[in-house]
């Protein structure tokens, strides 16, 4: 056995690069939940409304994508076992997205799809390109074949496609760029982002982090490759079916493939859980595992929606709204709530305590946040998610309002935790 001396340990991505993404994401969640409360009545109508588009993009880009990009810059080097290619590109990605997202959201909210929205969409596309270049160069430098890294890179490619199509749709509102009007393509745009970006990325990163945090012996690369192939084939199939104008029922095939992939992934997480060495599972990991179970919910809702369309039944608009809600406020938010407190405390700990690592025992990363505050956040979230979802299903303004208040409370508690962590000076000793 040989080893490298002190200077050759891997460089971790600077906290200065990563933390702004988390702070931005937390603020975006707050903005989205305020908009949700203000516009809760909109959830009794059609999903194609300015305020709903604004909320959806605040959740998808400002909240989920910004947190994922932040965590991605920190975790990708762990996944591919090489340093981050460029912190400059990471900073560029943040700046472009940070400016572009509010412009885009403002455009949707006021339904002014002119210059601000187009500039916003272009900047977001630039942010995605910067992230993709960073990830791509990291993969090129990595010497190991790694299924998790392939998930991440492929999901980023789908994100690029989602952002490019989204931008084209923006221009298509006023200039005839595409064969149909922009509303026609909304479903494709949404699924490229939801399945190609969010789902694929969460499956790829989750399949690495879940066993790692549980200290589990379980590995199953072939199962993960099967998940990868199922999800990508499903998305390609959906895209082709859409482009050749197949009837809605044909989407049963890709939906069934995604459902199979999710069941395989749930099996993977269950096996990792059963074969764990660390018996005591903390609240953050429990919420993460709950999020894995919640992934099945929108798939079930989508099957109901497809059946409803096939049978020519009513209530499709409410089911479609519920479908989107169970994604952005469901598993995606749940997994971020859980994983934030498994990643950010370590980033902050490295910032505050790493220079003092030689001074003996000191507070650990888990001491940087309050477990009780975290549990209160989760309780508010579960109440808000259930009530608001129920409100959509029942078209009940009262339930929607109570649910929105609980989700706003979730965002406030989450921001409180993030603020305490990020702006911490130093705990003892």
């Amino acid at each position, binding site marked *: *056995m*040989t*080893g*490298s*001396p*002190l200077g*050759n*340990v*891997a460089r*971790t991505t600077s906290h200065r690069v990563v933390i702004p993404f988390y702070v931005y994401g937390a603020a975006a969640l707050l903005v989205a939940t305020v908009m949700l409360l203000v516009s809760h009545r909109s959830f009794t109508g059609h999903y194609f409304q300015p305020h709903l588009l604004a909320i959806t993009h605040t959740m998808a880009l400002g909240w989920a994508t910004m947190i994922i990009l932040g965590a991605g810059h*920190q975790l990708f*080097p*762990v996944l591919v*076992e*090489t*340093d981050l290619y460029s912190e400059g590109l990471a900073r560029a990605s943040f700046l472009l997205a940070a400016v572009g997202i509010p412009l885009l959201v403002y455009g949707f909210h006021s339904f002014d799809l002119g210059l601000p929205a187009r500039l916003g969409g272009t900047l977001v596309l630039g942010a995605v390109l910067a992230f993709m270049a960073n990830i791509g160069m990291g993969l090129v430098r990595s010497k190991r074949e790694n299924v998790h890294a392939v998930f991440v890179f492929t999901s980023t490619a789908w994100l690029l496609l989602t952002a490019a199509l989204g931008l084209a749709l923006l221009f298509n509102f006023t200039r005839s760029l595409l064969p149909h009007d922009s509303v026609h393509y909304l479903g494709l745009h949404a699924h490229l982002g939801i399945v190609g970006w969010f789902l694929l990325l969460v499956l790829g990163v989750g399949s690495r982090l879940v066993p*790692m*945090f549980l*200290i*589990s*012996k379980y590995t199953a690369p072939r199962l993960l490759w099967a998940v990868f192939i199922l999800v990508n084939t499903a998305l390609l199939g959906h895209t082709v079916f859409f482009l050749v104008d197949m009837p809605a029922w044909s989407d049963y095939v890709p939906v069934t493939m995604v459902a199979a992939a999710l069941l395989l992934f749930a099996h993977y997480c269950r096996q990792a859980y059963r074969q764990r*060495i*660390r*018996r*005591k599972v903390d609240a953050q990991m429990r919420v993460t595992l709950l999020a894995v179970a919640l992934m099945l919910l929108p798939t079930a809702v989508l099957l109901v929606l497809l059946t409803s369309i096939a049978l020519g039944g009513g209530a499709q608009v409410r089911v479609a709204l519920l479908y989107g809600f169970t994604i952005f406020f469901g598993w995606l938010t749940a997994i971020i709530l859980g994983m934030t407190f498994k990643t950010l405390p*370590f*980033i902050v*700990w*490295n910032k505050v*305590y*790493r220079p003092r*690592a*030689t*001074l*003996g*025992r000191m507070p*650990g*990363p*888990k001491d940087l946040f309050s477990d009780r505050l975290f549990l209160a956040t989760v309780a508010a979230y579960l109440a808000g998610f259930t009530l608001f979802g129920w409100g959509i299903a029942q078209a009940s303004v009262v339930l929607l309002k109570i649910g929105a208040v609980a989700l706003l409370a979730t965002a406030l508690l989450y921001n409180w935790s993030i603020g305490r962590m990020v702006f911490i000076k130093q705990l003892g000793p």
Partner: protein
Amino acid sequence: MSAPGQDELIDKALDALRTVDDPEVGLNVVDLGLIYEIEIGPDAREVDCLMTFTTEFCPMGASIQAGVTEALKMTFPEAAVQVRITFDPPWSQSMISEAGRMFLGG
């Protein structure tokens, strides 16, 4: 490691390293199985430690390595301490000691 007095010196080093925890797991680096070899030179003038991390590019790696170095320097103040990192063989769960498994509830 078999020279006279070496065993006691190595035990002393291991005791010191049991005060250094992996911040994520909360278990010390010895029972977690991160320490592969410790060699202590004549008159304890040189201490050479070979260790690993649970994963290559561990975000906490530099902090853990610094903690190990400092613990050895405090225990052997006269010695030149070197802490080297290897991933050959890579760390696996089987390297966790019985005491470590008890700590983790396994």
